[in-house]
């Protein structure tokens, strides 16, 4: 599938999902089963894992799959109908905005592959993996994992809930062109954050902006179950408009999951917004590299430009966690 065709197919899947939002869990289970039916027995045995397989749950990274091995089925080894079934499952599980973000990250990796010449073998859309932990079900918990270089989605389905934490979204290049159109996979995460920090008054900014540099994610891959002492500006010291901007920024991660699950998640985050903090490190002029962290009782988000491979604004890592409910453990225990 060429690059434009890929995006068109992606949009079609997104539209299909938008039309079936009311029956999301049943749709998701049906698409999961359709994907599994499309596989041969050997493929099925490789894509399915026990729901409690802790090693598989934690088998994700920002790094290329040639460096940190993933398990499951690789997109590049699937036949076109199988790949389409896999992407249809993903489209049903995510919101349209989330699905498009995922496709843009994958397309960015394809761009990185083409820009890397002979060294591009570790990048590209074919090197993304899918796996399922447990048996797809409307009522019993199961997990869908999808990821590769710069992407790790860990989606736990618990009844009608969908838990997206922990998940990693990243982009390199963070801006590229396809068919004459500029794509910024994490552009909203950047622009909304700069808008928020510039909407703060001087006193608020003084609290929000850290006096030190932050070189990388603090709670990235391998840091499951941990959280750190919050710092920066507490949202209880923000006005209603600033809080709304903060929540809108958070929705760039919380809204990756399908609309029903995202609505429930955003309601929880909104209820705790007064206890949510934002910390900023770096310049406040959009276009410059700046790190930020948003942290609440059930939320950790980090956005970290990477000084690797040149311009830090072109290489972004982010992490999204709920330290109380990563991998849906709390929801599954209810």
């Amino acid at each position: 599938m060429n690059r434009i065709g890929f995006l068109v197919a992606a949009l079609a899947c997104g539209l299909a999902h938008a039309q079936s939002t009311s029956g999301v869990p049943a749709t998701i289970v049906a698409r999961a089963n359709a994907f599994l039916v499309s596989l041969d027995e050997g493929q099925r045995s490789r894509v399915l894992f026990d729901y409690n397989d802790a090693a598989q749950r934690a088998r994700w990274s920002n790094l290329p799959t040639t460096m940190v091995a993933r398990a499951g089925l690789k997109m590049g080894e699937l036949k076109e109908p199988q790949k389409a079934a896999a992407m249809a499952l993903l489209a049903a599980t995510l919101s349209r905005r989330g699905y498009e973000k995922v496709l843009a990250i994958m397309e960015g990796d394809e761009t990185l592959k083409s820009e890397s010449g002979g060294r591009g073998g570790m990048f590209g859309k074919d090197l993304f993996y899918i796996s399922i932990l447990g048996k797809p079900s409307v009522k019993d918990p199961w997990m869908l994992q999808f990821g590769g270089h710069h992407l790790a989605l860990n989606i736990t389905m618990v009844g009608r809930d969908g838990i997206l934490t922990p998940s990693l979204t990243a982009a390199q290049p963070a801006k590229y062109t396809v068919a004459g159109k500029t794509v910024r996979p994490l552009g909203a995460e950047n622009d909304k954050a700069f808008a928020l920090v510039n909407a703060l008054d001087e006193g608020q900014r003084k609290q929000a902006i850290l006096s030190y540099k932050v070189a990388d994610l603090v709670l990235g891959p391998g840091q499951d179950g941990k959280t750190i002492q919050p710092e920066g500006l507490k949202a209880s010291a923000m006005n209603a408009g600033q809080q709304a901007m903060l929540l809108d920024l958070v929705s760039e991660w919380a809204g990756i999951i399908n609309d029903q699950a995202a609505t429930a998640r955003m309601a929880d985050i909104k209820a705790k917004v007064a206890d949510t903090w934002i910390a900023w490190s770096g310049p406040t002029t959009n276009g410059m590299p700046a790190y930020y962290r948003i942290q609440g009782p059930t939320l950790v988000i980090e956005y970290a430009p990477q000084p690797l491979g040149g311009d830090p604004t072109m290489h972004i890592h982010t992490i999204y966690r709920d330290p109380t409910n990563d991998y849906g453990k709390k929801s599954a225990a209810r």
Partner: protein
Amino acid sequence: MRRVLVSVLLATGLAGQSAAHRLDEYLQATLIGLTRDHVELEVNLTPGVAVLPVVLAAIDRNSDGWISPEEERAYADQVLRDVALQVDGRPVPLRLVESRFPSPQAMSEGLGTIRLRLRADRAGRDLRFENRHMRAVSVYLVNCLASPDPSLLVGKPERDEAQRSIRFAYSFADAYGTRPEPGWPARGSLWLAGIGILAGARLAWQRTNRRQAQ
């Protein structure tokens, strides 16, 4: 014992890995865990491929292309010497609890992380940590972990710009019950200061009374 074909790995590793991950920095990330009776540090050290020769030279002391358990231990001891922990203004010795070294192949690709777990069997109310290990090539992160014990109170930390050092007040809430907001000095410290002032005032009052009685 792991065999390190340093030159071969560097030659292959440096060539094609820079787009994906850390390149010319040695990332040293420390998480500080606090309990009622000890301080535990998780120190994660990730050398970028371009600084790997410098880091490997410090590990592979005899340059024989092998990293032995003795060399791993010696490197961990070097890190121990290069970090400093103070509790309540006094230096506190740290000991190595656990160390895990990645495969040489992983390090050559810039994705291997050396993991050290250090512990000090001392608790207090004021903590300062500093990391001086390989300053010329390193970037640092240092943070205090939130504790599963909800009574832990941590004051606003102070760091230098490069995050080589951190200092903060902390205590456990038993004596005063409520949890201060992060970003403010630990309320426990204020209580202690208040008790100290009251005790001093009472002593002064007693002395004054004694002098008047004489």
